């Protein structure tokens, strides 16, 4: 789910850049406070590469196949590092695969970055007590939050000439089409974190 270039007005695109830059600056500030942030870079990069590669592979979710978003999982596993990792991933996707766009980079960063942070917060709060519930909510909740942000931005950004009823109907169809993805991501994140907690708990820092 990427917002392409040219859909929203330029002032919204610039506001998206400003908001994403603010979030990334906050994340970098938190990262600098860690004991040895540089030592984390290879781990974050390798995990980001796996998330990036996994999001390019289609997973069958009847009746079709989908590309996973994985924003919730990134939030849970990378914490504050998820924001710079998402921005880097979106930039590379726009440059290498034509997904998203250079003017929409800030808004797309917001659409995926804010849900990742929400998932991180949720996992920190309840991941220790109810890990399966927290993992499912982080996975599917991040997809739903990203969908809500996407819909809100498109509704606010499309030209006024477009019929509001038709616009809302198109967005409802889009959201309904993504509900199986939300459920699938919830199941995948729950199963995956269950495996990692058992086999490699260092990968799940706050569980």
């Amino acid at each position, binding site marked *: 789910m990427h917002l392409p270039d*040219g859909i929203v007005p330029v002032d919204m695109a610039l506001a998206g850049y400003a908001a994403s830059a603010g979030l990334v600056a906050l994340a*970098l500030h938190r990262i600098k406070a860690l004991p040895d942030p*540089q030592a984390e870079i290879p781990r974050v990069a390798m995990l980001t590469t796996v998330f990036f590669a*996994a999001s390019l592979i289609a997973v069958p979710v009847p009746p079709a196949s989908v590309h996973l978003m994985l924003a919730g999982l990134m939030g849970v596993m990378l914490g504050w590092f998820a924001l710079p990792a998402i921005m880097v991933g979106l930039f590379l996707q726009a440059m290498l695969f034509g997904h998203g766009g250079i003017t929409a980079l800030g808004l797309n960063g917001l659409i995926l970055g804010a849900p990742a942070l929400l998932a991180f917060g949720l996992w920190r709060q309840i991941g220790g007590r109810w890990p399966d519930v927290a993992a499912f909510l982080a996975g599917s909740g991040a997809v739903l939050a990203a969908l809500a942000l996407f819909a809100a931005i498109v509704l606010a950004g499309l030209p006024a000439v477009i019929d509001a009823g038709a616009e809302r109907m*198109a967005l409802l169809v889009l959201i309904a089409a993504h509900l199986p993805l939300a459920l699938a991501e919830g199941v995948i994140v729950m199963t995956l974190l269950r495996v990692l907690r058992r086999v490699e708990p260092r990968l799940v820092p706050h569980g």
Partner: protein
Amino acid sequence: MAEASPRARLVIALLLAFGIASVQGLAVLPWVIALAVAVVLACGHSRLVLRRMRGPAALALGLALVLPLISGGAVLAQLGPLTLRLEGLQAAALIAGRLLAIVAVTLALLAPLTPLQLVAGLRGLRLPALMSDLALLTLRYLDEVRTDLRRAQLARQLRGGRGGWHALPDHARLLATSLIRAQARSERLWAAMRLRGYGAGLAPPLAPLQARDWAAITGAAILACGVIWLDRIL
């Protein structure tokens, strides 16, 4: 423009993209498309640009087919049960034109760069070192990890892996295995980076922008301002 450094190309792409994105009127659209074509021709690699534009072109086509049928008031034509409307057609032309022009300009300027040049350009624009290092390492290992994941998925299918919703836990376990392998590899990578002096301030200083870079950036800024000005007066 074809001679500009990666750093200058990134600045030029941003200037032109935002200039084109600010267009609100249809009258300036032919000028914008002419500008995009000129940039593609000036940079060379037009075949590469056309090949990578297939996805955005499909999206633009979708918008052009749907918007005139679902929005607007003034009826242009009645095609059986479908009504073609003027305002929808205008909105579709504007959005699709902006989309294709921005993508063409961005691809013409940035697609010919190697991933290393792209990251060097980002670093030159003072992107935080953490983010440029992330981009570099992600690009370095992307193909390898993608191939591993595809191979694992194929192996699962060949072993008679279940389909539909039942396949999701299998995909989760497959992804977990990749993440565990990535964690192990990152520890070796960190050791190798430390041995090569990473973090000891040994990175070479940034080269200043050349006169031709400044000329190209200034030209792009003038063109972007020109597009915005034309949009206001036409």
